[in-house]
């Protein structure tokens, strides 16, 4: 989230798209309803009429996978009717920047495409440079090569009629949504976007998110109270796990994982550290060398020296894509000897789940650490399989739940909150930290006796306790960072062993260590900031600066320098996030995005400090599949692309096992319900929740049910090219067929919580989904695939 949960109450318009907060983030509704009590409008855009839609002022149905068309039409409306927040757009975004003459776009393809590799040469996706190296600009936004004019041209094709033909939305509903949302281009109004996996789980998921960000930039809604784009995280600590690099391409604090070509630390730093020749650009990532060096010092301690590049050689380098889909593909070809699943249940949660289950049989061993016996941990006795035919040795480690251990969790709003152990774990259950600690200590012992390249393990700095339950405070202190020797910074002497006060003090000379620069400031000499429970609210905006701790540097709303004009005056003085106090020459309110004065002042900085040029990117070369989001059809779609001749995202290779629309005419889409959680192990084993939603079910429309002779509660079989499942049919008007390109298209909605284990058993929706992912993140396209449905169970 750019903002945080409490802040939603300050919105004038709330757009829930690709998310279903009433069902999947029920507590968020406390703040949504607070906003609505103050006159805010809630818009629900969803293929199904959900519990969120039932509370919304406006509901617009859209076909799964057509967000870019939907948002593209809104961008077009804004540009055609000049509804942008002009000062914001001119001063704070790259709308005025001029783009290279060679850059172009034709029939769904941007310049530089290579069909053989499904990739782009981004050579022309760049700004024209002025003599001083900064981008050439036209603040009038009239130059034909300006981002603004290119954007306007790109989205001029997204007329309301064309958009609704693609999305299946009723045009009057669409226009109502457009008018309501686009009313927030006024400086004193803000709209927020709440999105989740309905947005991201597409072959162009990253571009979906980008389209939201661009919409918000054009309306000047980023940085403001009640604004921003807010990712609703699906687990209480998923924000924390991302911050701490659960993904393969990042190191803690979103530092880039080195490529095989980054042969030493200086090469790596040279390649990954962004540069800017604009003195007004803070270019915060220019601090990368300090953060990387401090990370290496945290990991290899005294062994990490300037002479050996701080043990950079010990880091694993990537030479490919190690995302979930790719790992599972490798698993299926026998590419792994062992697998350790911690709180993950891939044969329920992964795409093309049967193929993953099949692949597990090639493992020599597998460890599952979980609160319950998951389907993955008993894959060897899944229905239809002879356990004798599977040789994999499986270990199930009982894990402690969140209330049975101490530590921090980081919520969607980036608040790291300390939790205490409420009860002892049952039986032999242990915390994940204990398991990892034991594993590491024992591996270190083994490597001391030799092995291939033992140094990274032998020299690993690892001191979290005495071999019993690791001390979470030691971990948290290391994440924050400490001084490794006495250092004088800006006239203050910091002693060896002292906690680093904030990341501005981290050094690239080995004098500091920090396990995660983003969390520097969370555990200082003053103590554990995450454990704070102060309820002061100096701004009146419920930011509670003394409640827990928020990354970065306790800033509650990021990009807040964009909430004020060039002179530091709040766009909306009634909800001022920060304000420049002219007399005192300092900022007041939230922790600003850097201490510098506002943009127009001497020594002022542009507001988007994490971007090298300091401006919100309406055009960016950063993504694999284009500088502007463009509508493509999902990899499996019942229709042709009505926007261009390019059917699917050109930067995604065509997978095997594609469902053919003739055989599988209906759109399948997966989702969650309030009563169950993720792959279900935690909820399908609780009788009180099983009572509420006991069976796997699918939601279908009344016309589809009539066509197929299906009555409410009937057993049905749903199939795709990957497999088939049975479920009970919930026939409802809440799912309606969509008119797409003049034809009626039906959908089948499937909750993905079920599996063959646990108390409440049912077939897994992910048996049907396709193992194809987003061009940028490889997140699977769970939300739009093709399937068929017939009356009767599999045995019928």
């Amino acid at each position, binding site marked *: 989230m750019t903002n945080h949960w409490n802040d939603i109450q300050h919105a004038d318009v709330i757009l829930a798209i690709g998310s279903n907060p*009433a*069902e999947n983030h*029920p*507590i968020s*509704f*406390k703040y949504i*309803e607070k906003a609505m*009590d103050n006159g805010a409008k809630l818009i629900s855009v969803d293929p199904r*009429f*959900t*519990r*969120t*839609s*039932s*509370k919304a002022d406006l*509901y617009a149905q859209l076909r799964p996978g057509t967000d870019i068309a939907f948002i593209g039409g809104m961008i077009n409306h804004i540009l055609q009717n000049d509804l942008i927040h002009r000062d914001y757009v001119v001063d704070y975004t790259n709308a005025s920047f001029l783009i290279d003459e060679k850059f172009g776009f034709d029939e769904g393809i941007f310049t530089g495409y290579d069909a053989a590799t499904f990739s782009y040469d981004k050579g022309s996706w760049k700004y024209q440079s002025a003599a001083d190296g900064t981008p050439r600009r036209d603040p009038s936004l009239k130059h034909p090569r300006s981002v603004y004019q290119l954007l306007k041209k790109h989205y001029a094709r997204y007329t309301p009629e064309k958009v609704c033909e693609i999305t299946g939305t009723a045009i009057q509903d669409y226009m109502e949504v457009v008018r309501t949302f686009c009313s927030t281009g006024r400086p004193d109004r803000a709209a927020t976007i709440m999105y989740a996996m309905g947005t991201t789980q597409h072959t162009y998921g990253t571009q979906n998110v980008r389209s939201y960000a661009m919409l918000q930039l054009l309306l000047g809604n980023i940085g403001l109270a009640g604004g921003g784009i807010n990712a609703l995280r699906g687990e209480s600590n998923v924000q924390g796990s991302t911050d701490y690099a659960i993904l393969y391409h990042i190191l803690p604090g979103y530092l880039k994982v080195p490529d095989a070509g980054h042969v030493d630390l200086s090469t790596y730093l040279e390649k990954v550290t962004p540069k800017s020749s604009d003195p007004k650009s803070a270019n915060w990532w220019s601090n990368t060398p300090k953060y990387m060096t401090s990370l290496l010092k945290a990991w290899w301690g005294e062994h990490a020296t300037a002479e050996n590049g701080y043990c950079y050689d010990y880091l694993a380098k990537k030479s490919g894509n190690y995302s979930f889909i790719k790992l599972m593909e490798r698993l299926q070809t026998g590419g792994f000897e062992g697998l350790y699943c911690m709180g993950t249940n891939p044969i329920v949660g992964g795409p093309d789940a049967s193929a993953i289950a099949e692949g597990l049989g090639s493992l020599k061993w597998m460890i599952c650490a979980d609160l319950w016996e998951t389907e993955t941990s008993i894959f060897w006795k899944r229905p239809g399989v*002879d*356990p004798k035919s599977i040789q994999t040795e499986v270990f199930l480690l009982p894990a402690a739940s969140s209330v049975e251990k101490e530590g921090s969790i980081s919520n969607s709003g980036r608040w790291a909150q300390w939790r205490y152990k409420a009860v002892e774990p049952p039986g032999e259950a242990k915390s994940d930290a204990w398991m990892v600690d034991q594993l590491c200590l024992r591996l270190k012992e083994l490597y001391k006796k030799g092995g291939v390249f033992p140094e990274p393990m032998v020299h690993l700095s690892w001191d979290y306790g005495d071999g019993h339950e690791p001390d979470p405070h030691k971990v948290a202190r290391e994440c924050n960072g400490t001084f490794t020797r006495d250092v004088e910074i800006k006239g203050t002497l910091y002693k060896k062993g002292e906690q680093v006060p904030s990341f501005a003090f981290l050094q690239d000379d080995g004098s500091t260590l920090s396990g995660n620069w983003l969390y520097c400031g969370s555990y200082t000499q003053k103590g554990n900031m995450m454990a704070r429970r102060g309820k002061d609210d100096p701004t009146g905006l419920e930011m509670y600066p003394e409640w827990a701790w928020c990354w970065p540097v306790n800033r509650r709303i990021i990009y807040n320098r964009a909430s004020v004009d060039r002179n530091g005056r709040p766009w909306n003085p009634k909800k001022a996030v920060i304000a420049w106090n002219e007399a005192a020459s300092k900022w007041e309110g939230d922790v600003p995005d850097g201490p510098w004065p506002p943009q127009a002042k001497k020594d002022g900085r542009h507001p988007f400090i994490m971007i090298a040029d300091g401006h919100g990117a309406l055009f960016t070369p950063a993504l694999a599949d284009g500088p502007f989001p463009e509508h493509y059809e999902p990899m499996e779609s019942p229709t042709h692309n009505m926007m261009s001749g390019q059917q699917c995202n050109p930067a995604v290779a065509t997978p095997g096992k594609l469902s053919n629309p003739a055989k599988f005419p209906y759109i399948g889409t997966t989702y969650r*319900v*309030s*009563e169950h959680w993720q792959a279900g192990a935690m909820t399908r084993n609780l*009788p*009180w*929740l*099983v*009572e*509420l*939603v*006991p*069976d796997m*079910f699918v939601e279908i429309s009344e016309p589809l049910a009539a066509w197929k002779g299906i009555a409410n*509660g009937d057993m049905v079989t749903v199939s795709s090219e990957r497999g088939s499942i049975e479920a*009970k049919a*919930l026939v*409802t*008007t*809440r799912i309606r067929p969509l008119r797409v390109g003049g034809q009626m298209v039906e959908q089948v909605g499937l909750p993905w919580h079920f599996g063959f284990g646990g108390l409440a058993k049912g077939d897994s929706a992910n048996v049907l989904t396709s193992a194809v992912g987003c061009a940028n993140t490889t997140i699977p396209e769970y939300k739009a695939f093709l399937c068929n449905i017939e009356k009767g169970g599999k045995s019928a």
Partner: protein
Amino acid sequence: MSTSTAKAGSMAFLIDMTKCTGCRGCQVACKQWNQLEAETTQFFSGEGYQNPPAMSEHTYTRIKFRDYWKNGQNEFAFYKEMCMHCAEPACASVCPVGAFIKTDLGPVVYDADRCIGCRFCMIACPFGVPKYEWSKALPLVKKCTGCYERVKEGLKPACATTCPTAITYGPREELIKEAEKRLTAHPDRYIRKVYGKEEAGGTNVIYLTSLPFDELGFKPVTLRPLPGYTWQALRLVPAVFLTVGGGLSALSWINHRRERLKAEEEEAGQSPSTETKEENP
């Protein structure tokens, strides 16, 4: 004219159904606090995702779902069913042994030690709230306690504590004022009625809604306090006891015997049959 006889200072639930998202946290919190058994359900019982099929000895509160098409639009609505904690409860007035007590704090509580199992309360309650433990050999009457044990200690009821949006718990007079304030502030959002302000002579559970009450399944209830009708109920006592009550008891006993015998049989035959299963997967 108000006919409410609710006690001054008593505590009440304000349930604003326009704010209920149907998450059913209340339903689970109730079961957890009262340690109630989960019911065995299949698919859904009723519209939307409704479950279990009815209020029972194991289910003191439940979200009823409405899922229908009206004037070209979806209606997906949620209504919390629970004991209304009437100011003058019919259950208490008909109970021949005083097993039901209307507390000053608001909750209508039940004293199992006094109960003789006549079940007049079940017949008298216009909301159909008290339920009998048909599954037990020595059954008692079960219903929402208004979390009296929590409220006495200054805590909020379990459902109200869990609910992120729709349930406000507090002094009844204040909540009536709050409800009326909401009606004035958002006239377009609500049906202009505070349900429970006067119904059944006033209840300690009051509702606001955007949909007509009958569409949500609310039964029409007199505004007069119910004990006014009690003499009519009492007049029927002997007959009811002998026919309805007695008949149900007999049925329950027979059913029970059957279940008990079945359970005994299963227990006796369990070990060998399990072994056989494992040998032939």
